């Protein structure tokens, strides 16, 4: 049941990502809801238990992207694995700022891997990319804070009732 809910949440986030999220773009960068959800899941669960969900979501993201098939999925799985490793070794305590920092690092790693993979087939890709990644990290971290508080509020209310 829990897994079913997680998959349903991801599918809903995926539909939002490909439709309305792009309208929230700031300086040509829009928040990546799926990436934020995946990192939250990796931090609170274990990579070993959820790797197949990441592949499933990455598969759909690849289908809806114009980038070469597999690049998003590979970037997602590698960045999620690294975040899991950081979470277990460096950022051991699950405090608010630790979680947000982990997500920021995750967004940075994800974009870096994605760019490296895209650079194999396109040389036209490096104009203004560093600035784009910086904005991407800041904007997604901001959304991660919002989502974190939203989740906290929902679960807090649930436990109260």
């Amino acid at each position, binding site marked *: 049941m829990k897994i079913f809910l997680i998959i349903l949440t991801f599918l809903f986030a*995926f*539909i*939002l*990502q*490909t*439709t*309305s999220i*792009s*309208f929230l*773009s700031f*300086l*040509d*960068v*829009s928040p*990546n809801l*799926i990436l934020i959800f995946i990192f939250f899941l990796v931090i609170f669960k274990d*990579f*070993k238990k959820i*790797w*197949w969900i*990441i*592949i499933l979501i*990455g*598969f*759909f*993201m*690849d*289908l*809806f*992207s*114009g*980038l070469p*098939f*597999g690049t*998003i*999925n*590979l970037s997602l*799985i590698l960045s999620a*694995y690294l975040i899991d490793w950081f979470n277990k070794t460096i950022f051991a305590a699950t405090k608010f700022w630790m979680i947000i920092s982990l997500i920021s690092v995750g967004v940075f790693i994800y974009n870096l891997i*994605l*760019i490296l993979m*895209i650079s194999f087939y*396109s040389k*036209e*890709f490096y*104009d*203004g*990319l560093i*600035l*784009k990644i910086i904005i*991407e990290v800041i904007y997604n971290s901001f959304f991660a804070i919002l989502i974190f508080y939203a989740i906290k509020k929902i679960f807090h209310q649930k436990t109260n009732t």
Partner: protein
Amino acid sequence: MKRILKHPLILSLLIIFSLIFINQQGWLNPVYNIFLKSSSFIQKSIFQTSLKTNNFIDFIATIRNLKQENNDLKEKNLNLLGEIIKLKEIKKENEMLRGQIGLPLQESSELILTNIISKDSSSFGKYFLIDKGKKDKIKEKSIVIISGNLLVGQVIEVFDSFSKIQLIIDPSSLVNACIQDSEITGLIKGGYGLDLIFDLLPQGKNIEIDSMVITSGLSGLFPSGLLIGKIEKVISSESQISQIVKVKPIVDFEKLDKVFVIIK
């Protein structure tokens, strides 16, 4: 060996590489069609609602300038009406002259109106998904425009009832273009953000700001005369081999909801 293969990361990578292989064989197309068919209605509805909300917010934000904008547009409209009458006369004359020297009349192209149902899932690519595909005679490399002969992009992947279009603002998009009323030609590439880069323009030629950039038709892929944008500024220095110019696209890609695909 078995232990290594059981490691979740290794297992994940193996699955992803298998998926890449399966996709290259085209075996994933049925999955894609099924998913798109079942989700297209929700996607289309959410996309259209989001677009309307976005337009409404924009409208509220610009309500102060509405009167001035209306006056400017009325003036522009009158000028354009004059231009249309002049062009109609030229067209008539052109047809008559073609008839006299025995040249066939230019074929008018067939257009299909399509709805945009979703955008790219990554922020690096600039792609749209439209609700028409192979069944509607759309082919790969078909050109996508909006009314007024404004170039939007081209079809890069076609499925049964859907197609993926690459916008001209995508970093890997290349379009042969020229500056209107001049013989200066170059290559339009997607730049950072929503702007375009006009590259490979010959050095020493005078490039006027606000000149219109249109497709040159040189590669044979894009028909000539499609409007791309307006020259904003020259960004290269004199020491460079060619001139590079920033171009502002005429199309507002953020507000598109319907596009035409040229099928003939």
